[in-house]
């Protein structure tokens, strides 16, 4: 399912990031960073919620509006019952819709928001997303202080929150089109190899997007996938070629950009709902505003991982949503 937009723009974005991202190669592009995982809060979960609030506050100050001017707040995260988003929304008081598609949540939110703005159901909206390394480890894996060994294919959940403000006010970054992905499951059960889980979903969505928009792969200056990691990136390239006969040019993966894999203990790269937007809303949009990229396709990939279902020996389904952004004069 592909949507086209004539009148939706990303007017502003904000990014806040944690201690590991602060030491990564994109450190100068974030609006704010935190030195520790607690951010003066009691627990990791509350810290994650605080990050969403902080990122929305920064965004509101950037666009010079108050929360009363915002029609809709779309947010999601990895925690059970998307708790971080719900608690942030409870304090913000903006009409709220919670969204969840694991690490594809960011683009899912953008698609819903863009559709409503395009159809003039709302004037504007804020799409936020967050993830917190320790809160995610606690929920999905082992206690943080346990530090259980992981294989090389594991990814490191990013800590941070990113928000985007969408409206029909014309500005540089235009939302051109979006493709809603289907859930793909090729039988991978390894929770430490999410790149392999998600690569077919990314390929499926990229293929459908190009087919629906009748575009060639070279139309985009940059194709960005969410959080496949270095091994997932290689899998996607080969899968795309053998399955669809498409050679991925001008392609990168945000998981490989957010950290310095040589120096930081992040295994195959970053992951988490915040990974793709942290890179895109800071570094990539910056490059677009400088006209280094004119057209990009952001494909956020999500492993719809449920520990319960994996324990019941089922494989992990994955999804990818794509959104195409353009620079306009």
């Amino acid at each position, binding site marked *: 399912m592909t949507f086209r937009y004539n009148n939706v723009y990303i007017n502003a974005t904000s990014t806040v990031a944690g201690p590991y991202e602060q030491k990564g190669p994109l450190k100068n592009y974030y609006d704010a960073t935190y030195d520790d995982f607690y951010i003066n809060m*009691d*627990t990791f979960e509350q810290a994650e919620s605080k990050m969403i609030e902080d990122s929305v506050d920064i965004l509101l100050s950037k666009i010079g509006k108050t929360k009363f001017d915002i029609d809709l707040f779309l947010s999601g995260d990895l925690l059970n019952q998307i708790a971080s988003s719900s608690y942030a929304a409870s304090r913000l008081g903006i009409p709220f819709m919670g969204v969840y598609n694991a690490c594809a949540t960011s683009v899912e939110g953008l698609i819903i928001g863009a559709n409503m703005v395009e159809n003039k159901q709302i004037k504007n909206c804020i799409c936020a997303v967050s993830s917190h390394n320790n809160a995610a480890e*606690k929920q999905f894996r*082992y*206690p*943080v*202080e*346990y*530090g*259980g*060994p992981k*294989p*090389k*294919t594991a990814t490191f959940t990013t800590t941070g929150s990113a928000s985007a403000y969408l409206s029909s006010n014309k500005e540089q970054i235009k939302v051109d089109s979006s493709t809603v992905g289907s859930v793909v499951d*090729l*039988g*991978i059960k390894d929770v430490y*190899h999410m790149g*392999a889980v998600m690569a*077919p979903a990314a390929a499926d969505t990229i293929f459908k997007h190009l087919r629906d928009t009748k575009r060639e792969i070279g139309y985009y200056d940059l194709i960005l996938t969410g959080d496949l990691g270095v*091994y997932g990136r*290689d*899998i996607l390239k*080969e*899968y795309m070629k*053998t*399955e669809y006969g498409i050679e991925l040019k001008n392609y990168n993966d945000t998981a490989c950009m957010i950290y310095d894999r040589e120096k930081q203990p992040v295994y195959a790269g970053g992951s988490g709902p915040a990974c793709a937007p942290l890179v895109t809303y800071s570094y990539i949009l910056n490059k677009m505003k400088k006209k280094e990229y004119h057209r990009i396709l952001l494909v956020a990939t999500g492993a719809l991982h449920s520990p319960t279902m994996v324990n019941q020996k089922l494989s992990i389904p994955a999804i990818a949503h794509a959104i195409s952004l353009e620079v306009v004069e």
Partner: protein
Amino acid sequence: MEKTKYKDLVNKHTPKENRLYNGMIAFIIGGFMGALGELLRQLYAYFFDIPTSEATMFMIITLIFIGCLFTCFGFFDKWVNFAKCGLIIPITGFAHAMMSAALEYRKEGMVTGIGANMFKLAGSVIIFGVVSAYTFGLIRLLLGGIA
């Protein structure tokens, strides 16, 4: 693409874990832990003038205490990550598993947090430890009779 074919593609791009290296590290550090335990046991037996069976208990308590303390100080997880089974298999790993879970859930209440989650990792060690002790004890009894 078929699932089996995709699995082959994934395997092609999946790096091999260095099992020999990991095994060596675990062997050396695990062996060092064993030697440390034996040293402590002998020292306790010598200085406190107690039978070695009692000294064993003191040694275990010491190692558990050190494991828990280091977990609380926040650097034992980095050691575990490096030494892997060299520190997970000895009694320190068990203490570390319980302590890290207790730390993680300390803000969620004594009963619903610490009490309910402390054995999250270590619980299966206890269950299967008891079951296998029972099974092998029974086998030994059947084969050798009461010694």
